[in-house]
């Protein structure tokens, strides 16, 4: 007979988001089942052996595995156990409320029922097919995360002489890692006019080793039979089209791609969870509750974060909210939300959350500081002001709810605003009529204004 399990909260994924969610849900008194596809918890942190994690959460620089161990320790001390090498094949909403997941693990198939679901499924790397690299399809083209897995987990060297396409953080980290392991890294090519990675990684991963970064440049073709023998690079124009006559052939046996990450939301889509086209993750309220009641999401599944610390923070929130939802039971007044839109206004690439639950904000027992995560849509090197304005029309002229000033903003560097619940009183709104909402507007400060 098929195994059946029932619990309050199911968490999908045991990376930093999932374990934080599981721990906070358990601390809130919920029964939790964590489903993890791999054989160990920790998610991508297992292969991120470099340090720089945990400065915000733990006040010190930890390596990825060290950060993951802290999550695992806390989870273990709460009596948590993840179902490992287990994955969900399909998910459905039950008519009576709650969810049923069809799962498979080493013991075979099983059905898992819960009142609430936390999606902590992380993100995936964009591949060469998705960035239109043309030419042959020889061995030797790897995403940065795959190269990282090969070197750090499997102990395999991807090649001898590498070109990196893109300047995302993992690509920069891998430029250093491959160099330390004895590979020659010829250079990194970024199609955009500005680097995608954090400034400190440009410094400590490229500059430290004399690896050049070519901006407004890309790889247009891959050459080789069984193995990569070289690539063609070219400069690109403002529309990212290769400029004829600027092609250069480089000899290499490895092409590493660091061209972006996409939140993983196949399961969310199958449950009908609406996504934000800007983040490619579910639209969530400040409690990480998606637009499908009972489905919560956190971490890189919601938007691609720069820092694991923020991933954990969103997991904490999703877990405690999911526990409260599950324990409240069907028909509880605390389950009724009054959602109001929070939109990305001019100068703002995106903002998470995309919705504010005014009912939770108004409830003294539940109202808590709200974390807003955003990126600017362009580099504002001489300073910037982020202003949350009432009303969601573009260029909203509504009242300023809160304002933060920055010395500089760059799209690759995510910012976080911790807003007191009282500052977000954008009311009145009913579920059917979402109300005026608010929008986050980001404006540069010109040097002469300082």
């Amino acid at each position, binding site marked *: 007979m098929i195994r059946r399990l029932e619990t309050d909260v199911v968490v999908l994924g045991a990376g930093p988001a999932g374990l934080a969610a599981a721990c906070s849900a358990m601390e809130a008194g919920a029964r939790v089942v964590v489903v993890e596809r791999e054989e160990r918890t920790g998610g991508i942190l297992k292969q991120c052996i470099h340090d720089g994690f945990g400065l915000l959460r733990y006040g010190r620089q930890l390596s990825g*595995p060290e950060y993951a161990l802290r999550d695992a320790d806390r989870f273990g001390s709460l009596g948590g156990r993840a179902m490992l090498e287990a994955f969900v094949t399909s998910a459905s909403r039950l008519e009576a409320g709650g969810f049923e997941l069809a799962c498979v693990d080493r013991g075979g198939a099983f059905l898992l029922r819960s009142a609430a679901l936390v999606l902590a499924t992380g993100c995936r790397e964009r591949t060469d097919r998705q960035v239109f690299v043309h030419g042959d399809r020889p061995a030797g083209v790897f995403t940065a995360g795959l190269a990282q897995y090969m070197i750090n987990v499997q102990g395999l060297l991807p090649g001898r002489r590498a070109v990196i396409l893109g300047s995302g953080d993992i690509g920069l980290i891998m430029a250093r890692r491959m160099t*330390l392991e004895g590979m020659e890294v010829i250079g990194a090519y970024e199609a955009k006019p500005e680097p995608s990675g954090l400034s400190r990684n440009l410094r400590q991963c490229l500059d*430290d080793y004399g690896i050049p970064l070519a901006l407004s440049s890309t790889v247009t073709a891959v050459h080789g039979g069984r193995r990569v023998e070289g690539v063609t690079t070219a400069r690109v124009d403002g529309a990212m089209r290769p400029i004829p006559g600027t092609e250069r052939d480089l000899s290499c046996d490895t092409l590493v791609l660091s061209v972006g990450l996409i939140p993983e939301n196949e399961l969310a889509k199958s449950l009908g969870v609406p996504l934000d086209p800007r983040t490619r993750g579910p639209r969530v309220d400040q409690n990480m509750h998606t637009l499908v009641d009972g489905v919560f999401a956190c971490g890189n599944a919601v938007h691609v974060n720069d820092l694991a610390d923020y991933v954990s923070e969103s997991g904490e929130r999703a877990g405690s909210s999911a526990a409260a939802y599950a324990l409240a039971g069907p028909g509880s007044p605390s389950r009724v939300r009054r959602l109001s839109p929070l939109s990305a206004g001019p100068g703002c690439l995106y903002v998470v959350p995309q919705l504010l639950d005014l009912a939770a904000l108004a409830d003294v027992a539940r109202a808590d500081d709200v974390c807003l995560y955003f990126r600017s849509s362009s580099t504002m090197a001489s300073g910037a002001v982020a202003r949350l304005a009432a009303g969601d029309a573009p260029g909203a002229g509504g009242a300023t709810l809160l304002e933060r000033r920055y010395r500089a903003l760059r799209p690759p560097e995510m910012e976080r605003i911790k807003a007191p619940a009282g500052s977000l009183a954008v009311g009145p709104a009913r579920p059917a009529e979402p109300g005026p909402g608010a929008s986050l507007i980001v404006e540069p400060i010109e040097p002469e204004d300082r």
Partner: protein
Amino acid sequence: MSERKELTCIECPRGCRLTVEVDGGRATVSGNACPKGAVWGAQEAVAPMRTLTTTVAVEGSARKRLPVRSDGTIPLARLLDAMEAIDPVVVRPPVRRGDVVASDLLGLGVDLVATDDLLGEDR
């Protein structure tokens, strides 16, 4: 004769742009948002130091590599030498995070420590 250097601080993700004036043995740092940046900038301008993170080989486990780090900083210019010195290191389970897997790297007084647990039950 003073020298002026523009540096990007690596102490945290903020990545402050530092200006360091080196005059004789004295370094004056500006542009830092916190005290760590001042300390880092002054050191960086005269002798860059880095924490090394890498892996060592594993025997007696289904896992192939164990992540490790130097438990202090070592000169940037010696990182590749340190990698050579670490190359022959092999560990067997059990190893716990923080255990020293190689001591006194290159005679620099810095140990190499495990940053993950490698226990017997790992398949």
